[in-house]
C-alpha cells in the first residue's frame, strides 16, 4: 500500500463514488424536459435573452439543425480565437509586448481549444497575452466543454423520444451547460485554488532581485480561474508551459488532489444523469461501473509501471538513492507532487479528454507512458471528456448490443430502440474515422524527414512521441510526450486537421444517430430483450471497447512504448 500511496487513490475513488451521483442528478435536472418547461425566474431571464436574438427556447431542432448550430458556433469560435491571437500585439492587457502568434501556430491553437483538445505547440508565458488567455482560450475552455455536453444530452434525448423529429435546442443546451453547470463549479474550484496559492492578478510579470542577488521575473495573470475550468471542462491547456506542474497552477498537494478529482467528476457524473433522464437508473450504473473499472485498472497498471519498478537501476555506475519510498527517478517531476499522484494524474488525464499533466510524460517509465497512450486510444470513454465520454460510451453500447444480437440471432435493441443498418453505418463511421486519420497522419510524419527530425528522444521513444501526438490530437486529449518539437508548419496544420476530424467527424454521426433513434418507436422489452442493466452487459461493453482498440492499434503500440519498455530493461 505504501508503494502505491494507496490512501490518496482510495480517497479519490471514494470521493467520486459518493459525489458523482449527486452531480449527475443535478445535471439531469438542468436538462430534463420538465425543467425546461418550468416557469422559474432563471428560465424567464434565459428565455428573454434568447428571444431577443431570435431563438425561441421552446422550439426544438431536428438533428440536422442541431448539427448545423454546433458547426456554426464552433466556426465563429475558431475565427474569433484566430483573430485574437493574430491581433494580440495591438490589443490591451499586453504589458510584456508580446507580438502576434504565427499563422500556423494560431490556427493550430484555435482549433485545439475549440475542439476541447488543448494541444499546445507554444509556451503560454511567452506566446500569449493576458487578453488572449482570458477572453480567448479560457472562454473556449467553457464553451467547448458545453458543446460536448449538449451533444451528449441530444443523444440521450434521441434514445428517449418516441417517433419524434427533434432532439432539443442546441442554443438552450449550450447556455445551460455553461451558466448552470460549468460556471458555478469553476468558481468554487477557483476559490480553493487561489486560497492554496494559485495566482489571480493583473501584474503579469514582476521582476525582482533574488535572495542570492540574481534576477527573477515572477509571472502572473488570471491563472486560478483558467486553471479551474481547465480541469472541470476536461480541457487541459495550461496557462504556463509546465501545465499543472507549474507551482502557480498547482501549488500544493491539496490542489494536486483536487485537480485530479475535478477533471474526473463531471464525466463520472454523466452516466447518472443519463440514468435519471432515461428513468433507467440501473443502465446508468452499469455504464458508470464499466467506466470506473477501466479507469481503476489503467491507474493500477500505470502505478505498477511508474512506481513499482526500480528506475534507479538505470544509473548503475552511480550510486543514487530514492527520494521517497518509491524508487523513481524524479526527472520531469516536482517534489511536492509525488510519483504516485503523477501516475494517477496521467491515467486520469488520458482517460478523460483533459490532457493536463502534473509530471513530464516523456520522462516517465515507457510502459507507463504506453498505458496513457492506450487510454486515449480507447476513444476516451473511461470516463471520457465532458459530454464526449458519455456519447462515446453510448456508441460503444450500441455496438455491444449489436454484437450480442448477432450472436443470438435477434434484432438488437438498446433502451427499447431497434438498432438497424442506418445506425450501424454511422456507428462504424464514428469508430473508424478518427483512427484512420491518426494512422495516416502519423505515417506521413514518420516518412517525412523534417517531421521525423522533430523528435526529442532516440529510437522507439521517438516513434512514440509522433504516434502519441496524433493519438492525442485525434482523440481531443492534448497531453504530449513533450520532447517532440511540434511547432512547425507540418505539425501545426496536420494536427489541426486531425483535431477537427476527431471532434466534428465524430459529433455529426452522433447527432445523426440521435436523429435516427428519435424517429423510431420505442418497443417494450420482451423476454428476448438483452438486458443492458446487468453486470453481464458491463463485461460485454468493456470487452468490446478494449478488443476493438487492441485490434486497431496493437502493432503500433508494440513498436513504440512496448519496445521502449523492453529496451530500458526496467
Amino acid at each position: 500500500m505504501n508503494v502505491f500511496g494507496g490512501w490518496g487513490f482510495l480517497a479519490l475513488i471514494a470521493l467520486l463514488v459518493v459525489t458523482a451521483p449527486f452531480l449527475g442528478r443535478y445535471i439531469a435536472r438542468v436538462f430534463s424536459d420538465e425543467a425546461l418547461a418550468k416557469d422559474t425566474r432563471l428560465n424567464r431571464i434565459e428565455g428573454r435573452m434568447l428571444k431577443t436574438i431570435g431563438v425561441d427556447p421552446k422550439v426544438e431542432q431536428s438533428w440536422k439543425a442541431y448539427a448545423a448550430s454546433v458547426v456554426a458556433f464552433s466556426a465563429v469560435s475558431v475565427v474569433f480565437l484566430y483573430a485574437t491571437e493574430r491581433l494580440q500585439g495591438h490589443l490591451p492587457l499586453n504589458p510584456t509586448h508580446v507580438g502576434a502568434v504565427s499563422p500556423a501556430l494560431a490556427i493550430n491553437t484555435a482549433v485545439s481549444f475549440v475542439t476541447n483538445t488543448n494541444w499546445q505547440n507554444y509556451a503560454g508565458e511567452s506566446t500569449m497575452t493576458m487578453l488572449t488567455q482570458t477572453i480567448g482560450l479560457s472562454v473556449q475552455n467553457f464553451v467547448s466543454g458545453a458543446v460536448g455536453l449538449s451533444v451528449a444530452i441530444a443523444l440521450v434525448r434521441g434514445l428517449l423520444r418516441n417517433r419524434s423529429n427533434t432532439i432539443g435546442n442546441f442554443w438552450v443546451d449550450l447556455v445551460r451547460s455553461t451558466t448552470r453547470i460549468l460556471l458555478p463549479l469553476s468558481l468554487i474550484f477557483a476559490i480553493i485554488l487561489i486560497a492554496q496559492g494559485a495566482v489571480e492578478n493583473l501584474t503579469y510579470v514582476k521582476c525582482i532581485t533574488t535572495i542570492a542577488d540574481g534576477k527573477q521575473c515572477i509571472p502572473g495573470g488570471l491563472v486560478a480561474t483558467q486553471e479551474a475550468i481547465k480541469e472541470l471542462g476536461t480541457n487541459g491547456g495550461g496557462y504556463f508551459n509546465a501545465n499543472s506542474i507549474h507551482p502557480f497552477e498547482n501549488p500544493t498537494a491539496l490542489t494536486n488532489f483536487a485537480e485530479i478529482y475535478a477533471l474526473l467528476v463531471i464525466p463520472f457524473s454523466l452516466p447518472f444523469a443519463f440514468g435519471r433522464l432515461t428513468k433507467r437508473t440501473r443502465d446508468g450504473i452499469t455504464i458508470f461501473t464499466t467506466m470506473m473499472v477501466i479507469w481503476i485498472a489503467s491507474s493500477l497498471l500505470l502505478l505498477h509501471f511508474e512506481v513499482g519498478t526500480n528506475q534507479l537501476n538505470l544509473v548503475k555506475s552511480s550510486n543514487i538513492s530514492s527520494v521517497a519510498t518509491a524508487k523513481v527517478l524524479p526527472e520531469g517531476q516536482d517534489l511536492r507532487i509525488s510519483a504516485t499522484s503523477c501516475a494517477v494524474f496521467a491515467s486520469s488525464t488520458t482517460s478523460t479528454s483533459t490532457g493536463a499533466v502534473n509530471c513530464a510524460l516523456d520522462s516517465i517509465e515507457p510502459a507507463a507512458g504506453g498505458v496513457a497512450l492506450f487510454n486515449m486510444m480507447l476513444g476516451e470513454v473511461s470516463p471520457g471528456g465532458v459530454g464526449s465520454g458519455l456519447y462515446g460510451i453510448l456508441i460503444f453500447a450500441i455496438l455491444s448490443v449489436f454484437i450480442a444480437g448477432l450472436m443470438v440471432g435477434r434484432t438488437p435493441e438498446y433502451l427499447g430502440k431497434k438498432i438497424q443498418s442506418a445506425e450501424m453505418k454511422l456507428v462504424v463511421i464514428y469508430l473508424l474515422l478518427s483512427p484512420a486519420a491518426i494512422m495516416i497522419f502519423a505515417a506521413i510524419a514518420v516518412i517525412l524527414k523534417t517531421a521525423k527530425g522533430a523528435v526529442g528522444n532516440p529510437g522507439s521513444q521517438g516513434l512514440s512521441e509522433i504516434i502519441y501526438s496524433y493519438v492525442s490530437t485525434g482523440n481531443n486529449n492534448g497531453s504530449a510526450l513533450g520532447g517532440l518539437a511540434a511547432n512547425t508548419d507540418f505539425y501545426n496544420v496536420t494536427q489541426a486537421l486531425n483535431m477537427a476530424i476527431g471532434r466534428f467527424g465524430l459529433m455529426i454521426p452522433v447527432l445523426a444517430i440521435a436523429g435516427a433513434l428519435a424517429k423510431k418507436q420505442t418497443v417494450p422489452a420482451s423476454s428476448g430483450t438483452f438486458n443492458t442493466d446487468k453486470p453481464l452487459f458491463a463485461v460485454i461493453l468493456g470487452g468490446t471497447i478494449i478488443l476493438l482498440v487492441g485490434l486497431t492499434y496493437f502493432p503500433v503500440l508494440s513498436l513504440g512504448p512496448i519496445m521502449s519498455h523492453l529496451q530500458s530493461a526496467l
Partner: protein
Amino acid sequence: MLRQFKPAIYIFIVLTLGAGVIYPAIGYVIGQTIFKNQANGSIAYMNKTPVGSYLLGQSFSGNIWFQPRPSAVGYEGNASGASNLALTNPKLIQNIEQLANDYRRQNGLPKTTSVPADAVTASGSGLDADISVANAELQAPRVAKARSISLARVQSMIDRATSTSPSFIFGTKVVNVVTLNLELKEMKLQ
C-alpha cells in the same frame, strides 16, 4: 446552415462576456480582497523588499547556499518546463552521472556516497522550490562550514523549512529551498 450564424455570433458574445469577463473578474476580486498574498504569488519579503516567491525555486550558486534541484529552464521565472529526456535516452543517464559527481565534489562527499535522486534530476516545472530532506542534510555540513556556524543551527533551520503538509495525501516530506536560504540570509544581517 447560414441561418445558424446569427444566433451563433450573439450567443458567442454573451458567453464570452460571462466566462471571459465576469467570471475572471469575480475571481480577481475575491483573490485581491480575501487571499491577497496567495493571489499575488506568495511573495517572500526581506526588509519589506520582495526577494522571490515561496512557491518558485531560484538559482543559488556558491557554498554558502543550499542548492535547488537542476532546472531545464535555469529558474527563469517567465519560462517553465522539463528536460523531456526519456529514461531510455543515454543522454539522461550521462547527465545524472555527471550531476552526481558534481554533487559529491561540491559537498566533499566520498565517491561511494549515495546521492538523493532529486539532486541529480531536472524538475518538471523547472521552478521546483523543494528538495528532499536527505538532499538538504547532505548539503548542511558544507553550508555550515562556509558560513562558520554550527551544524546544529543549520539542521534546525532545515527542520523549520520542512513542510509536513504535502504528506496529507499523495505527497512526500520536502524542504523549501527559498525559505531555507532566506533564513540564512536574514541571519547574516543580524
